[in-house]
């Protein structure tokens, strides 16, 4: 849906109007079919925790966000596209690598990565593209660390990652790029079969339960789901702060990790970059806010709109307020499919927001704010270029 050009960070007007009328609406989507749109916070939680609302993309009635998503997910069957018990079986194999403790253990590694990238930006002059020079390489290195990609393969991984960081774009789902990434991950899995290292790939190989093809699918999922979202949160979060100088000052001047952590939650809520909704299909009839959703009907849970529901968040949910208690937001989804990498993403965002503005206190946009172009049609909302200067 289009957003008002003057207010690129606000929810699309059409979506807001639907939400004001009812937490559940009937909508027509890109392929001409109809689906139920859930815009209320409580209703979103209810649907996302209801086992009758299936994630199985093979079921008739499932609504895809875009033709590219349909092509990608039909080819890559993995955790987000299956229900329990198959989903739980796959997820349990990797939960150890995504725990809160694991994420905290990586904090110094992420800090070093961000510091080195900021050093390089400062050494190169007084301008940069925050997406290409910081957000993407940071996110790529973090994912290499999580998967256990050797440094020797890091460059090739990063090159493919740069393309895949624009999720949903024709290039990112271009079969050649995905196939190249699949081939690279395949060679990493084969290497791990003889010498399993740390990280998700090594652990899945050691567990000895999954064939190579499924380990590759899991690694590809981590890459596809985590890379772009974190990169775009970094760039769009910076853009949001640069256009809210009072809020930027709070982050820049804070030395309190608890405040930075709270700021990350509010930015996750406010921006809700996964803006195309969580997709489900009713496996059986279910009722949401008095509306009957029949078996076989598609459901789109608009977590971005739910994150702006005034019944769920104090004050004005359309405002960015870094002191707000937003920790119950749905930016990572809800229910059993909630983002696997959320704790890693949190720590990485705390590190980058907590470092960038402190180290470059004069950071500002290098182009007028109305010349920034947004990617409305991609799975993750964001800007693919953010020229900054200092």
């Amino acid at each position, binding site marked *: 849906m289009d957003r008002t050009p003057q207010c690129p960070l606000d929810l699309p007007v059409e979506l807001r109007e639907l939400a004001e009328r009812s937490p559940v609406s009937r909508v027509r989507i890109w392929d001409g079919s109809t689906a139920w749109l859930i815009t209320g916070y409580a209703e979103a939680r209810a649907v*996302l*925790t209801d086992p009758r609302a299936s994630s199985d993309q093979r079921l008739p009635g499932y609504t895809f966000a875009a033709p590219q998503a349909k092509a990608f997910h039909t080819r890559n069957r993995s955790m987000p596209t299956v229900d329990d018990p198959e989903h*739980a079986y796959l*997820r*349990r194999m990797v*939960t*150890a*690598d*995504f*725990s*809160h*403790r*694991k*994420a905290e253990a990586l904090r110094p590694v992420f800090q070093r990565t961000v510091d080195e990238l900021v050093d390089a930006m400062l050494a190169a002059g007084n301008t940069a593209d925050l997406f290409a020079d910081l957000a993407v390489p940071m996110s790529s290195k973090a994912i290499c660390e999580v998967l256990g990609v050797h440094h020797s393969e890091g460059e090739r991984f990063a090159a493919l990652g740069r393309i895949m960081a624009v999720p949903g774009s024709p290039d990112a789902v271009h079969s050649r790029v995905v196939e190249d990434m699949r081939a690279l991950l395949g060679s990493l899995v084969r290497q791990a079969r003889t010498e399993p290292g740390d990280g998700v790939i090594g652990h899945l190989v050691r567990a000895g339960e999954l064939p190579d093809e499924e380990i590759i699918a899991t690694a590809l999922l981590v890459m596809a789901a985590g890379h772009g979202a974190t990169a775009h949160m970094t760039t769009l979060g910076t853009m949001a702060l640069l256009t809210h100088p009072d809020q930027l000052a709070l982050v820049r001047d804070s030395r309190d990790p608890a405040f930075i952590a709270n700021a990350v939650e509010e930015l996750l809520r406010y921006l809700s970059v996964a803006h195309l909704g969580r997709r489900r299909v009713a496996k059986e009839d279910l009722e949401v806010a008095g509306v009957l959703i029949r078996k076989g009907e598609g459901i789109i849970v608009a977590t971005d709109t739910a994150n702006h529901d005034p019944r769920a968040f104090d004050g004005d949910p359309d405002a960015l307020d870094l002191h707000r208690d937003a*920790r*119950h937001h749905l930016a990572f*989804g*809800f*229910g*059993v499919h*909630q983002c696997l990498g*959320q*704790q890693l993403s*949190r720590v990485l965002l705390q590190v980058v927001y907590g470092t960038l503005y402190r180290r470059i206190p004069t950071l500002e946009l290098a182009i007028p704010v109305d010349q920034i172009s947004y990617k409305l049609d991609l799975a993750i909302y964001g800007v693919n270029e953010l020229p900054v200067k200092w």
Partner: protein
Amino acid sequence: MRIHLDRDKCIGSGQCVLAAPEWFDQDEDGIAVVLVESVPEKEWDEVNRAAYTCPALAISLGSE
């Protein structure tokens, strides 16, 4: 207040540890564990938040 955790439902999101680190941890497989089951009243907010933000609805809170 007493914490009941259904470990079979847990998906290892880590939300409980984030919300109430004094009361929850994750084991070596990433699955939640309760550190202390009985919660004094002054700590109810944290534990309520852990239950509310658990995406798998694996935490329920009962009376002592």
